[in-house]
């Protein structure tokens, strides 16, 4: 179906090629997962498949890309629209119309599909993607998961045989992600579509893949058997990490297989006396309270984004805020940071209301790293950005730069912030916020687009911050991150706190929020691979 021969891509002005000597054959009816660290060339590879590279992006493409018998040298993306459907990471940026039905019809209209055929296909697509209920809704009213499903439906309706998706679930909560992935699974298995997707959250997708392609520094492997690929891949989900450490072969990729393999491990762990002690409850009552939220109500338009939320957070702890897309996580963080006014109720951080403090006093008390870290960056080089931050927070010269070095290692100061990798950009934003030495550090969805090594570094930093006496609050969909770093989990739904408790109680009991290790070792209260190793060490 897809054949790449000797493909190399060099963007204009780049010193090194983004892809080198790619020879790849993808058969029809396969779900192929593209795996690699950030900046390895995954997106470039995907964008060559429908000709966006080089027709839209510029740069030079050598070799040939042939999809369904059409060469992208002779066919522009628009000429391949009936063959290859391309779904971008952020669905809202790709919507051309206003309502669900119109958006799905748009592609068919440009392709000139017969009106009667169009009606039929539209109805079918609505059913396949489970959107029939939403057909006349405005796109802006939908949740993130629904929007992503619409954007897939919109390319699907045009009748392509190949679907290419760039991180389709990175912005979604676990349940919405599962919805999208099972829809893709159905397309491959029931209808014989060919699907190529890139995703950082491997724990969500690896069990759905028929083949895995590894990308590293612009070099692309042949399609490998998933278990084989995971044994080699530098980025891998916790289930693979556990399997590797336990020496299981072949590596199990689904929870079901891993549970079957883990029978003896569970027995061994259960026999240990202090197995549940892996997550020792941290000095709770003793440490002072830094954040207290009392019956907080925030109304946005006619919607009550938060209703009567009451909670307290103490110094020296990491708290995770979880919940569906649109549950009110970001609103809660914004209210704590004084970005939003409370409709009623109160927020107090370190004894004062952040809303009443002047901005330059507020940043000493509470710092927020927003979801889109680009919003914090203005300068044209990393060094200039750091100097500006020192001035903004009246910190000693070099403070921000030193923080950045501590968080992300050496970063080239001459680089433009936009050219940094996702992980480095987050590190820069975090360093800027930390330059103000806020007592409370808030992070909104920090792991979007981060690969596992970058995530591991983030975990280390957050633990250090908590150890230094900061209160850290993270809003995230990433259960694996929560399992690594948090001591407490707050789950929001429809603006209300539904669960608030210590991490092993909340995460192990929940089917949606349980991390992979917890699912494999249920009912043992272990959440991460490190927990397992730590529990085993004294035994051996």
């Amino acid at each position, binding site marked *: 179906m897809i054949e790449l021969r000797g493909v190399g891509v060099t963007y204009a002005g780049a010193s090194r090629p983004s892809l080198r000597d790619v020879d790849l054959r993808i058969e029809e009816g396969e779900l192929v997962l593209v795996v690699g660290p950030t900046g390895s060339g995954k997106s470039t590879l995907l964008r060559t498949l*429908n000709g*966006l590279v080089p027709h*839209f992006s510029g740069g030079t493409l050598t070799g040939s890309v042939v999809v369904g018998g059409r060469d992208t040298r002779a066919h522009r*993306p*628009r*000429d*391949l*629209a009936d063959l*290859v*459907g*391309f779904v*971008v990471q*952020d669905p809202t*940026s*790709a*919507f*051309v*119309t*206003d*309502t669900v*039905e*119109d958006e799905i*019809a748009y*592609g*068919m*209209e*440009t*392709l*000139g599909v017969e*009106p009667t055929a*169009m*009606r039929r296909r539209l109805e079918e697509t609505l059913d396949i993607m489970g959107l029939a209920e939403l057909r*006349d*809704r*405005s796109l802006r009213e939908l949740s993130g998961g629904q929007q992503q499903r619409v954007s897939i439906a919109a*390319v699907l309706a*045009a009748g392509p045989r190949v679907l290419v998706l760039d991180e389709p679930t990175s912005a979604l909560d676990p349940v919405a992600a599962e919805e999208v992935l099972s829809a893709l699974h159905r397309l491959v298995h029931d209808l014989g579509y060919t699907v190529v997707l890139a995703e950082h959250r491997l724990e969500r997708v690896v069990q759905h893949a028929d083949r895995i392609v590894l990308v590293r520094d612009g070099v692309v492997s042949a399609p490998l058997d998933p278990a084989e690929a995971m044994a080699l891949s530098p980025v891998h989900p916790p289930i693979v990490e556990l399997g590797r450490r336990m020496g299981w072969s072949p590596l199990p990729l689904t929870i079901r297989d891993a549970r079957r393999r883990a029978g003896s491990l569970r027995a061994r762990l259960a026999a240990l006396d202090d197995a549940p002690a892996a997550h020792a409850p941290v000095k709770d009552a003793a440490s002072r309270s830094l954040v207290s939220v009392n019956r907080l109500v925030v109304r946005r338009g006619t919607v009550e984004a938060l209703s009567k939320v009451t909670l307290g957070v103490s110094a020296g702890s990491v708290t995770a805020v979880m919940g569906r897309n649109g549950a009110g996580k970001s609103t809660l963080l*914004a209210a704590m940071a*004084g*970005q939003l006014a409370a409709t009623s109720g109160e927020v107090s951080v370190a004894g004062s209301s952040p809303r009443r403090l*002047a*901005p*330059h006093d*507020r*940043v000493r008390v509470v*710092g*927020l790293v*927003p979801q*889109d870290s*680009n*919003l*914090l*960056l*203005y300068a044209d080089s990393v060094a200039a950005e750091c100097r500006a*931050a020192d001035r*903004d*927070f009246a910190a000693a010269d070099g403070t921000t730069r030193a923080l950045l070095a501590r968080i992300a290692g050496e970063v080239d100061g001459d680089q433009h912030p*936009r050219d940094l990798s996702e992980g480095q950009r987050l590190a820069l934003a975090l360093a800027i*916020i930390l330059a*103000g030495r806020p007592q409370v550090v808030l992070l909104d969805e920090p792991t979007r687009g981060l690969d596992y090594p970058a995530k591991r570094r983030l975990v280390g930093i957050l633990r250090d911050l908590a150890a230094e006496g900061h209160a850290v609050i993270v809003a995230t969909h990433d259960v694996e991150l929560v399992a690594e770093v948090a001591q407490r989990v707050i789950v929001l739904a429809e603006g209300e706190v539904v669960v608030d408790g210590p991490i092993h109680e909340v995460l192990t009991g929940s089917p949606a929020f349980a991390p992979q290790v917890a699912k494999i070792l249920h009912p043992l209260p272990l959440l991460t691979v490190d927990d397992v190793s730590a529990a085993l060490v004294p035994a051996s």
Partner: protein
Amino acid sequence: MARPTPAATPRMLHPVAWWVWGVGLATAAAHTTNPWLLLLVIAVAGWVVLERREVGALDSFRPFLIIGLFAIGLRVALTILLGNGVPGQVVLVELPQVRLPDWFAGLRLGGPVTLESVVAAGIDGLRLATTLACLGAANGLASPRRLLRYAPATLYDIGTAIVVALTFAPALVDLAGRVRSARRLRGHSGTGVRELARLAVPVLEGALDRSLDLAASMESRGYGRTAVRGRRERIVGSALALSGACGSVAGLFGVMSASSGGWFGLPMLVSGLALLATSLVLGSRRDARTAYRRDPWRAPEWATCALGLLPAVLLVHAEADAWPGITITQVPLDWPPLPALPTLAILAAVLVAWVTPVPPRLARARATTLPARLETA
């Protein structure tokens, strides 16, 4: 005109009908300076938006109205400061006058502020605000993206560009707001001129990113694909369309503005429209696009167009014939009368709130809330 059946089945009205109605009202507003009539037009537009805007559609009436209010304020403020040449007798306040060099002849800064000049400026602003409100109403009743579906192939590319630009403006405002609040996270207040300059870079970069994403998405979904015909035909088609559009606009200007005389306007308009029609026919013959579910054009659409065009035609005629109460006298100032016929014509435009079908989702929303309302009553 046969009594249009108030469509019992909810459906969306044809977007072209809404735009004809909106532009008709706007034209009427552009041809009078009577504040009563202008306020009546705003009320009519607002009422219809309340009655017929689909649930979830963008509410553009309010922002346009706010821009209009801003226009009035600006107009009045500039008049107070600079004067507008309306010779008034009732001096409200005497501002200290700044002596300007001689070569600034005809301009003054400060000086006496007369009631007449302020009222004239306010009415001028109101007229602009009313026109804007009418366009805002049309925008909210039928999104420009729906209108685009009916754009002929020749104009489709230009049309898409315009629509994307139109819908992009709100996104830009939204982005600016987010960047500003992010500024506060770095300890800045986000206000002041220097701060605004600081916002420009991230806002423009973000905006550029977004438009590139949208362009990539449109490209990979086949946008512009059917426009691939013979290169020459495309150029001829575009040239015809462009010159036709220019001709029509110039002609329209000639017809509408009384001062330049109507003699060149009409032939210009006719030939412009003819060129435009030719280009459209040429283009649509080769249009391979298809349309999903074209809205039907039935009696309510005809009625809506008629009710929008009625005040437009009447007021254009009334202004040309200098009916009393259409163009009000500014000096001496007097309470403007309420001319009967134009008032009735504008009031008639509100009938669309009854003759048009209710949009489907609004109908459902009402069906669910109405019983509850009755119970509480």
